[in-house]
């Protein structure tokens, strides 16, 4: 069916993107933060349109794209992330660049790419959507073009991104050769029906694909671009990289691995489990050594990716019910992680706008000068560490529970130990804020209204999920159910 109405929210996003571009061209004297409001309005319209699609019967576009609860989940996530990042960027960008229309346009495009990626059920479509997201990010990361570090980050990101997407494509081509199809369902069918003497090819294909998507979610050893890109990128873009871009990677992984590759779970599950272990350990160990806050958060987010991969491994080890459970837990964790990260960045951007200091040392005495920001930062970090009452506790619990259900007890244990390590460096950051005196002459000041309100709202969300994850869990469970409805055929073929 060619039902073009399925993606009206994304038309809105793309339309808003072009509108913002045109707006700057038409009114070059416009205040640059006006563009941020326009973008936020566009993202809000997108978000509202997305909400209208919640609860609709699954739609299908030519077997290439599917809109269901899973898509809706990521669509809301994308729209929300774009909205948040646009607001984060308003003052940041006004202070630093002269032209901003392209920035906001690309931000919206990246969000649209993310939604399409989560809807894709065909390799070509998924690949193009992935590149739409990546291209936008390459530019966004390097947007502060006279900042040599932003430029360097962008260069590293695009070169390594192109390299890894070549790997991914080679894997896809082998998969196509093996199965004669590029739709997920067709691939699954072909893999299930394949004859003798094809195992090596299937294995190589899948591992190349794992490398490609592993790059996207910054799984070690494909993670090395991430700290550099996070550090060099403009701060709001770092927030986007850490949340939406990572979530998009997992959207791709979930659809791909539950539907197309589920039949070959035996081939990839051990590799994913190993990746998860390496990723979480490397991320957390390296984070200890950091002095730059963005870099520390980059490594911390790598650690988070490791936790999330536990659920992916669990999909490979479980039956359909356990796999659905694991997917649901993963989606829930992504939601909690996204909220915590956004809250954290709202506070950091407010701090950075004032001081321009992105070192951990620069946070010293924040509890005395901006106690609310210090509180938000601490709460977000506690959420990352998985302390009770914050989102991270409930979501990580369910995540590891999925792992233990699938016989990956060692991995869940490693995850718990890693959370312990992570607490150490989070406490180091908090120590700077609470136990050190602020630099000379700094007194207590009010946080900026917009960012403060944003941080407060997001923080409420973090605590809500931490205390009462039920409603969100219900939503993610619906999304996971939709995912497995689509892949029921694939799982029915499991040996």
């Amino acid at each position, binding site marked *: 069916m060619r039902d073009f109405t399925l993606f009206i929210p994304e038309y809105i996003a793309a339309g808003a993107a072009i509108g913002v571009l045109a707006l700057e061209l038409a009114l070059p004297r416009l205040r640059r933060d006006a563009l941020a409001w326009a973008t936020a309005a566009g993202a809000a319209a997108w978000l509202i349109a997305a909400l209208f699609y919640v609860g609709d019967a699954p739609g299908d576009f030519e077997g290439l794209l599917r809109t269901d609860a899973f898509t809706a989940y990521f669509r809301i996530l994308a729209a929300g992330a774009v909205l948040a990042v646009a607001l984060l960027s308003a003052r940041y960008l006004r202070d630093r660049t002269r032209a901003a229309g392209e920035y906001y346009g690309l931000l919206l495009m990246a969000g649209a790419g993310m939604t399409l990626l989560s809807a894709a059920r065909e390799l070509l479509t998924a690949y193009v959507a992935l590149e739409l997201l990546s291209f936008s990010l390459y530019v966004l990361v390097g947007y502060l073009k006279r900042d040599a570090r932003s430029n360097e980050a962008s260069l590293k990101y695009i070169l390594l991104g192109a390299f890894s997407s070549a790997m991914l494509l080679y894997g896809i081509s082998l998969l196509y050769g093996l199965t004669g199809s590029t739709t997920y369902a067709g691939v699954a069918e072909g893999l299930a029906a394949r004859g003798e003497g094809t195992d090596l090819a299937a294995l190589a294909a899948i591992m190349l694909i794992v490398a490609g998507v592993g790059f996207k979610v910054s799984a070690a050893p494909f993670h090395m671009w991430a700290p550099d890109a996070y550090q060099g990128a403009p701060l709001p873009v770092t927030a986007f990289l850490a949340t939406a871009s990572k979530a998009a990677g997992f959207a791709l992984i979930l659809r791909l691995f539950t539907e197309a590759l589920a039949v070959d779970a035996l081939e990839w599950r051990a590799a994913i489990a190993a990746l998860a272990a390496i990723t979480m350990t490397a991320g957390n160990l390296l984070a200890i050594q950091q002095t730059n806050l963005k870099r520390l958060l980059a490594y911390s987010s790598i650690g988070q990716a490791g936790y999330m991969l536990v659920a992916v491994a669990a999909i490979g080890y479980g039956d359909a019910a356990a796999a659905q459970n694991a997917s649901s837990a993963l989606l829930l964790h992504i939601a909690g992680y996204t909220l915590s990260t956004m809250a954290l960045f709202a506070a950091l951007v407010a701090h950075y706008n004032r001081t321009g200091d992105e070192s951990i040392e620069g946070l010293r005495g924040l509890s005395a000068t901006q106690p609310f920001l210090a509180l938000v930062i601490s709460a977000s970090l506690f959420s990352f560490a998985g302390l009770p009452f914050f989102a991270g506790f409930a979501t990580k619990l369910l995540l590891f529970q999925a792992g233990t259900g699938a016989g990956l007890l060692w991995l869940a244990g490693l995850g718990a130990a890693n959370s312990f390590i992570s607490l150490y460096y989070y406490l180091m950051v908090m120590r700077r804020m609470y136990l050190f005196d602020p630099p000379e002459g700094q007194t207590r000041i009010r946080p900026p209204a917009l960012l403060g309100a944003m941080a407060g709202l997001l923080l409420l969300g973090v605590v809500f999920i931490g205390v*009462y994850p039920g409603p969100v869990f219900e939503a993610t469970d619906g999304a996971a159910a939709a995912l497995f409805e689509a892949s029921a055929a694939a799982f029915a073929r499991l040996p």
Partner: protein
Amino acid sequence: MAEHAWILAAVPAIAFLALAALGRRLPRQGDFLAVLAAASGFGLFFAVLASFLGRGEGAWPVLNAIEWTAIGDFRLNMGIAVDQITIVMLAVVTTVAFMVNVFSVGYMKGEPRYWWYFAVLQLFVASMLLLVLADNLLLLYVAWELVGLSSFLLIGHYWERRSAVEAAKKAFITTRVGDVGLLIGIILLWKATGTFNILDIIHAVEAGEVGGTGLFVSVMFIFLGAMGKSAQLPFHVWLPDAMEGPTPVSALIHAATMVVAGVYLVARLLPVFEAAGDALLVVTAVGLITALFSGVVAFAQTDIKKVLAYSTVSQLGFMFVALGAGVVSAGMFHLFTHAFFKALLFLGAGSVILGAHHRQEVGQLGGLWRRMPVTAAAFLVGSLALAGLFPLAGFWSKDEILHAVEGHRGALVFALISLASIMTAFYTTRLFILTFLGKPRDAEAGHARETGASMTGPLVFLAVLSVFAGFVVYGGVGEALGFPGGFGEFVYLHHPETFHIDWGLAGVSTALFVIGVFGAGWLYRGGRLDRAAALTAWQPKLYEMTRRKFYFDDLYQFLIDRVVLGFSYVVSWFDRFAVNDTGVDGSATLTGYAGFLLKHLQTGRVPNYALAIAAGVAALILVALAAGG
């Protein structure tokens, strides 16, 4: 009321929020709010108790739970369970919390961040009550972490002092090591039984659904958590350092409540421990070693609070020994009485410290008997109760422990725990003599003054409890109070035990008391130090070893140093903190070093990164070939 016992935790939680939000701006920085909350908690406890007792034995435990999350096959209820053990804990926590709040009004007067101190104190009380009320291990774990967090905040209250910060960090991290074990244990138990609910787990275990090595392993992980929180060897290092916190905090957290959380946990899960092979033997062994070890170390401590800290560690060991013998009533009874007299002793120490103008080395005190009569009298009662004088509270509970050990663990353990009992009497007497008798050894101590009513009041109240609390062991006393009988008929595992005094055992117990007291009395007669000095001179090495806590901190240090041997610059930098920053920092450094090594892989060069990607693909294919092949 009993099914709404969660209100007990809600009251201090609300007080915490109110104080944290407004405390700074309230008159008197809101201390009345804290006292009010604590007093109403204390009052509400009796309402809960009456309601609980009114239902009669058949209706126990009282349960109340709501569905928290129920999606698919994953169902999670949150709620409270009130049974006899919970009631005992509630009694201890609400009473001591009340006393400590009142005491703190006087003690903390004029200290920095007065309101914040009270706020965190309420947070602690709320989490501790939540911990004992929780009907499932998950909620328990949450409360467990919160308790740790508030303890961290309170120990580090004087964060201008580096030592306080270090102590807070040490406590937090040491207990977190145990907490990770606890979490793993909880997950393992959940894996095996499919539920977090404590009663359901116990039923599953009793029905034989789980068992064998798996159960033993998960129980050991859980015990790891208990050891961390209850400062059992080798995790004990944090508790003496935690004395950096304000003294009332030590009374509440590091004597009466938080540190017994481990005991509570084991008592709560005792049926599971029983079913898990030799788990109880491990509990006994750990408790016994801890009791003996810290009893010896307490001999040579010169800081009044550190003596009490090691004494606490030792008494916690006693409780574990009783639990290890499988007698939950003895363990819980000692927990109950110990809470009162140890809180009394700590508050008394606080009173001494304040009265004697922040002198807390026994070498600088002495002769306070005259200058601080109320404090001295209360302290004497507490000391005698701790040492086990008939018929004070400590006598009865220690007697119960001896009885339990004699019945279930045999002669050797009995002999050793008796030895530990003598040590208790010994170091308690020594502490009392050096602090209160003889002549002041320091000008400030000479000018000591009795403290105000808000401080002596709680001392007197706790002294009364320390005298009489032990009598609930008698059936008649219990019935008169509305219980089904004495302590043993109220808190028990398999069947109620009526208490009959065993005169032989009581004799032994009294003999132990006498030996200890007279030993110390002879050595420090009249508060003089000459004989003790002679003893020290006779065996200086032995003394030094005891004083240095058997080099435990140093041992950690040494091990860590060996592990990181070869990284000599780390070691040399590290050596300076030999005693202060112990194994805790060491393991952190080790992890940090791993990160340091790894970070140099992150060269910043694109070709290196690309190599990692390509090599990663090759390795993945190999791994998959090996695993799937």
